[in-house]
């Protein structure tokens, strides 16, 4: 075994770990350990070098024994190569994620800005801009006006039907939701997109107002009492005034304002990832109307 790389590496590591011991003593120790290894491999050819080295122990552990016997402070036990590389890998990944987050925050900060006065929500540093006053939604560089918007108006009487929920789906827009004074569901919307009848789906026990294919939706809705009003949208501003129906809102980015009716109690179930919630008084009364708001980025405020 003239120049076995594993043996040489072992002896090199041992030499390094013996650092505090004078060089001539170190050379003596290395020669003796090498002699032991060669003798062991020679006498037990079936055992092999790997097993001989394993029986000796990690070079750092052996070195520490030499240091301890001489009353010297042993070096810190070094981690096994596996642990070392895992640590490097873990820290490297963590560093990259951190760098990515810093770039994200730097490029898109502030994540969300709500301008109450001007009725405006800016998300991801202006990447998405929902302007309530102007009724416009801007995503990226595309800016749209509602000038060439189509009008979708209509009503449906829910009296005598077994209808219990109304769904509203949209991508970008603003909804003003009011209680209906009678049993009529009324919608008055402006949106960009093809003017067709497919936006309204009547499935017997539920009505779906599907504006998911349209953009820049602006709607005034009058919802009759007793139903559940479900909203699913991406970016939006929602105003609820004096609702006497149950609500279930799932929104990615946006701003929700809630004005409670004086004679109604509400049980709120809110979930918001980035943003704040304020001014909602939840009741545990049995007749309280369930109001669910689930929002990723934005604000929910009760008045």
């Amino acid at each position: 075994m003239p120049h076995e790389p594993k043996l040489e590496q072992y002896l090199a590591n041992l030499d390094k770990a013996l650092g505090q011991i004078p060089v001539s003593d170190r050379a003596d120790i290395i020669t003796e350990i090498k002699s032991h290894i060669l003798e062991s491999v020679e006498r037990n050819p079936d055992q092999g070098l790997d097993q001989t080295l394993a029986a000796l122990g990690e070079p750092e552990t052996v070195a520490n024994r030499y240091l301890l016997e001489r009353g010297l402070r042993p070096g810190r036990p070094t981690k096994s190569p596996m642990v070392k590389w895992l640590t490097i890998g873990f820290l490297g990944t963590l560093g990259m994620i951190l760098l990515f987050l810093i770039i994200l925050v730097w490029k898109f900060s502030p994540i969300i800005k709500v301008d109450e006065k001007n009725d405006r929500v800016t998300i991801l540093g202006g990447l998405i801009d929902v302007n309530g006053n102007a009724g416009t939604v801007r995503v990226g560089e595309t800016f749209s006006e509602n000038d060439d918007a189509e009008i979708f108006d209509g009503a449906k009487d829910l009296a005598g039907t077994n209808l219990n929920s109304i769904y509203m789906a949209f991508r970008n827009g603003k909804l003003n939701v009011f209680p209906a004074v009678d049993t009529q569901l009324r919608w008055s919307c402006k949106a960009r997109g093809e003017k067709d009848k497919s936006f309204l789906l009547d499935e017997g026990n539920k009505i779906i107002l599907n504006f998911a294919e349209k953009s820049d939706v602006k709607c005034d809705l009058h919802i009759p009492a007793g139903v559940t009003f479900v909203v699913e949208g991406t970016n939006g501003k929602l105003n609820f005034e004096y609702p006497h129906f149950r609500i279930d809102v799932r929104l990615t980015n946006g701003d929700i304002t809630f004005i409670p009716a004086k004679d109604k109690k509400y049980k709120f179930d809110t979930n918001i990832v980035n943003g704040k919630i304020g001014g909602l008084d939840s009741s545990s009364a049995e007749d309280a109307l369930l109001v669910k708001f689930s929002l990723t980025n934005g604000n929910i405020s009760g008045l």
Partner: protein
Amino acid sequence: MVDYLTNWKAQIRRGYLELCILMLIQKYERIYGFDLLEKLKEIDLEMKEGTLYPLLNRMTTDKVLKAVWETENVKGHPRKFYSLTKEGIKLLHEMKNEYIRMNDIFEKIAK
């Protein structure tokens, strides 16, 4: 309890091992590390090589043992032979007496 016993065994073994190693070296007059490990194994006093070599190294620095590298009459690699120094022989004598004294006490109590 297991920890207590392990700890106690390690303590009593340390001095005892040193005594046995010195006695073995005296018995064979001169012996090298690998051979000494084998002899220890034969008498059921196994010791890790990573423990023995540092111990021999310390005993040499303390002038209890002297070491000579030998390449003659051995094929291949050189071997480091250990033998007792004069001081080592005196020390071993004292150590044996101490052990016998301790063993007598043990016998007296155990009687």
